[in-house]
């Protein structure tokens, strides 16, 4: 009973901390991390009409964290008039990817079929990634809306990774690794990622070896990107709640350890 009561107190504490801090609006200046800055600069200096693949390699469960990152990067790409080929290597990323892509396209008045396209989902990701190195149209004979891919204006000059400047993998797991290990290693395709925070450290070695070009990580990464783009979004809005939650956890760990060591000393003294 006691155990449950502490649990409920801690749970309610977290809920209150996050909800209250979310209701307050404070604008933070979030200095960009080197990895976010690198991603931003790359997309910023890419010539107009360059083609970028956005791959939605995540499940619906990480949507809250992934969405602000994806939106910020998509906005940037559309703003700079880059052509976007969207796809998904996770079944659940499909509908989400199309939704985010068409939503941002509307903001910048970009046309489906000529400025962007969504190819949909392919299972067996390794085979799909490798196949696109040979022919994208062969892996995706039809787009998500059922059009024949080879009839779409945007696809006229696009055949394989040779025509793609960058793959942006929006991921909550190790799908980006497969982009790096198959498209990157085999076809020299440049890859960068938008990742959930939990995955950031897993990708550090790839970032350090430059197999992965850049990373925009977590809600914080989204906030940094929004800041660079000078367009407020979900990342910036969540920063105060995020900070409050971190401090709450910090306090819990410290208090928990104080109790633990006091008890241990008391037991040791007996």
């Amino acid at each position, binding site marked *: 009973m006691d*155990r449950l009561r502490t649990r409920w107190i801690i749970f309610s504490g977290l809920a209150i901390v996050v909800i209250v801090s979310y209701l307050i609006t404070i604008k933070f200046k979030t200095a960009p991390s080197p990895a976010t800055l690198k991603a931003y600069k790359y997309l910023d200096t890419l010539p107009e009409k360059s083609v970028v693949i956005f791959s939605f390699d995540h499940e619906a469960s990480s949507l809250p964290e992934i969405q602000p990152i994806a939106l910020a990067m998509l906005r940037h790409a559309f703003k700079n008039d880059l052509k976007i080929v969207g796809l998904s290597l996770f079944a659940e990323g499909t509908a989400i990817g199309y939704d985010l892509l068409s939503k941002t396209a509307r903001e910048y008045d970009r046309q489906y079929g000529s400025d962007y396209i969504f190819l949909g989902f392919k299972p067996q990701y390794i085979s799909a990634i490798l196949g696109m190195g040979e022919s994208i149209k062969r892996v995706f004979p039809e787009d998500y809306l059922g059009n024949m891919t080879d009839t779409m204006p945007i696809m006229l000059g696009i055949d394989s990774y040779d025509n793609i400047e960058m793959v942006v993998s929006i991921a909550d797991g190790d799908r980006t690794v497969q982009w790096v290990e198959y498209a990157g290693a085999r076809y020299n395709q440049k890859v960068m990622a938008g990742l959930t925070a939990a995955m950031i450290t897993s990708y550090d070695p790839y970032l350090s070896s430059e197999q992965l070009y850049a990373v925009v990580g977590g809600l914080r990464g989204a906030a940094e990107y929004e800041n660079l783009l000078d367009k407020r979004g979900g990342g910036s809005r969540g920063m105060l709640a995020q900070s409050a939650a971190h401090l709450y956890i910090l306090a819990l760990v410290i208090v928990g350890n104080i109790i633990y060591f006091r008890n241990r000393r008391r037991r040791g003294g007996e």
Partner: protein
Amino acid sequence: MAVSAAASDGNVETGSWLNIDTLPTLIFSLISLLIVLYAIWSVKSGRKFTIREIPGLKAVDEAVGRATEMGSSILYTPGWGGDIQRPTTIASMNILSSVATRTAEYDCRLIYPTHDPVIMAVAQEVVKESSIKAGHPERYRADDIFYISSSQFGYAAAVDGIISREKPASIFLLGTFEAESLILAETGNSIGSIQIAGTDSTIQLAFFIVACDYTLIGEELFAASGYLSGNESILSSVKAQDIIKILISLFIIVAMIWATIDPSSTWWVF
């Protein structure tokens, strides 16, 4: 590069049989292949192969002994994430076999909840065999090895409940864990059980290390299972990997000294 080499032969269309760019990988693959074959041969030909002491493994006896002394039970669960084909699940089964032998010898109760009916069936076989091997087939209790629910949090809540009610003296969390790791390890910790955990997921490992007494980290889990089961196939893998690890370490040391002396050289870049 390979294409231009082919072009000079006058057959651009067919490409060359050997892609020169992949030569380092080919050489490294062949060397690794030879090392693995050597290791397989050496283990098969009965050469004695020892594995270093793994603290978590040494604690198995302690854990069983303590549970017996206290007249309490042991809880063993392979986590929610894996199916029977996963290497971690197989490794977990190998360790279960040895734990079950001890519990049968000491007549200690072994509780094994799982999320997968197939894993349940295999675990029943394993524990039954171990009880027979220990000379106490009557101490095998099929009802203690049971299927709970395939839902992640349903499984977590149920195991959580079992831990709070039965208060097992020792808990083994070995296998494929996902988010439920946190819930189980925390509950086990709060009732003061000895906890031995092991998995290959880095995120869950972080939680295990702070909440459990012993943690088998990634490869250690596999090595431990090879050690306990004497499986030639696993042992030869462990051995081959050890040999290659030495080569890699030497490579890094030599190349780093070289890079310091002759900064213009780049022979270590592939």
